[in-house]
């Protein structure tokens, strides 16, 4: 078991609280399935599972409040847990998965790979462009030919492919 760190991580308290709120909501929803009307109704097991979540969520929250926060000069939430490059990358991925069914695998992946490589690697755009083309070609060949995966074609550009 990895040892529990001494100090509370930034945002840990909020996360524990969110988990507890989610667990309580899940329990409420589970109760709504069939209530306490019987012992073999579909709602019993979900209530057991969410009940365990509520109890362990409480324990997690209490132990998080007991831990002292980090010293003031330690990196905060946005420096340590969610720095800017995370927000940008998650945003890029989100754009990618939204675009994929619209413009198809090839176009969306090319855009995503180029932006992500450029953002994370910061090399000459021409080098990045070549890398993007190369990796995309390899991925396309391997998955289309070897794995025979149906790649999304995209509803907007269907006529052109």
């Amino acid at each position, binding site marked *: 078991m990895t040892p529990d760190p001494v100090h509370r991580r930034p945002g840990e308290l909020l996360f524990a609280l969110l988990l507890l709120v989610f667990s309580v909501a899940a329990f409420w*929803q589970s109760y709504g399935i069939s209530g306490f009307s019987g012992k073999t109704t579909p709602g019993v097991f979900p209530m057991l599972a969410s009940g365990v979540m509520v109890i362990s969520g409480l324990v997690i929250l209490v132990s998080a409040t007991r831990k002292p926060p980090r010293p003031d000069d330690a990196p905060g939430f946005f420096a340590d847990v969610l720095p800017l490059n995370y927000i940008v990358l998650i945003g890029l991925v989100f754009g990618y*998965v939204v675009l994929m069914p619209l413009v198809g695998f090839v176009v969306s992946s090319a855009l995503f790979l180029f932006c992500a490589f450029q953002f994370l690697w910061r090399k000459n755009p021409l080098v990045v462009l070549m890398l993007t083309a190369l990796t995309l070609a390899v991925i396309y060949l391997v998955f289309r030919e070897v794995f025979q*995966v149906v790649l999304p074609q995209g509803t907007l550009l269907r006529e052109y492919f």
Partner: protein
Amino acid sequence: MLETLGFFAIAWTDPWLIFLTASGTFAGIYVGAIPGLSVTMATSILISFTFKWDVNEALALISGVFFGGVYGGSRTAILLNIPGAPSAIATAIEGYPLAKRGEAGEAIGLTTVMSVFGGFVGILALALFAPIISSFALMFQSRDYMLLGVIGIFLVGTLSGESFAKGAFAGALGVLIGMVGLDPMTAEGRFTFGSINLMGGIPYVAAMIGFFGVAEALVQLHTLHTPAIKQKIDRIIPKFSDVKKYFWLALRASGIGTIIGALPGTGGDIAALLAYDDAKRSTKNPERPFGTGNREGLVAPEAANNAAVGGAHIPMLTLGIPGDAVTAVIIGALFIHGLKPGPLLLVETPHLFWFIVGSLTLANVFLLIFGLTGIRMFTKIVECPKAVLIPLIIVLSSVGTYAIQNNPVDVYWMLLFGVIGYFMKTYGFQVGPVILGVILGPMMDSNYRRTMIRARQDIGDFLWSFVSNPISLILTTGLLLMLLSQTPLWPFLRRLLSNKKD
């Protein structure tokens, strides 16, 4: 017997299957070695790509990746002091100091031979014990399966991660995710909120790829600019005297690995640490102190984590309960191919069981070949920058998730689970129990209800059934012992009792 041999030989005679096993092993070594790529990640992405294949082909590839990946972690552990996989943490402690002395090649050679040795012990145990356990498992009642499921999830939850509460939370969250959709017994909707998309349930492959692929890629973003260190490689084939010297140690470590692997919920990483600990205690006069390049400390964890591969297959194939996170993913693959791992698997589809044994053996042979060659080329590829790796993982994860049902909604699920998984990992939760919960949740639910119906809805009868049958009694005792030893319940009870005495 002859029939068994015939099934076993399928994996060895079809050139295409041999090729798949070989390329799986080869790819697995790199996947395991490149920090940031894990075996679980690779297998979960792979099953989404291979689900349209023939079962044998998919299994040949996955067996190879599993074996190669468990071994591959040791190479980066030795060369770069970065365990490529959690199961190679102990390897790094002894292997990197050896590399710094200029004995990297020898260390790699020795770990390869011992990994392969451990692998064979695990496979042998699988071939010998699975049929026995399987016939024994026919006597298991629904309550026993429920108990095994709970034990599996709790074991994963307690042995990894920061606290029991976090492990229990992750496991229960997984069970809850597994509950979403139409109830298989009454077809009532659970957590569907009237959405057709949710009625079919949350696709577990999307959850797996999200938690193991995207979440892991996001965690890796923290170490984007860790520079790589170069090592000199010389002699690779280990001395025969060395192999002979460490034989008994490797055998014992393999035994530990097989048993730990076979326990539901515990896998190679825990096996490796326990075997390392055992080697530390049992080696009387070490050549070099442990932690400074001791060979015993290198041999034991490597033999153990590869032995755990065969061990982990035992509960998966005989009981339908995965032995660790990777087998949880593989069991998902078997479900997709319409197979039901459990005590009847060996009776109804013996060819499948012996085929798995055959392709694992073959993968182990390839491991020996690839393990002792191509190390110079290997060091080049492992230096692949993370800035290139992370976007690639994300593209593969997205395409993989999409490929299962051609449904873009699955990809949104994957991304959501990826982000949640990242936060969970950041705050000290493990994602392994979540996946085990997703896989085992529905099984536990239906077994709970069967047990309750059999007890005629009477709580007293229901509880009595857990202690009135020898198998159930053993499992119940095991679960209670685990709960008492891992939670604050025991000190709490003791305090309560001593207060009363005062």
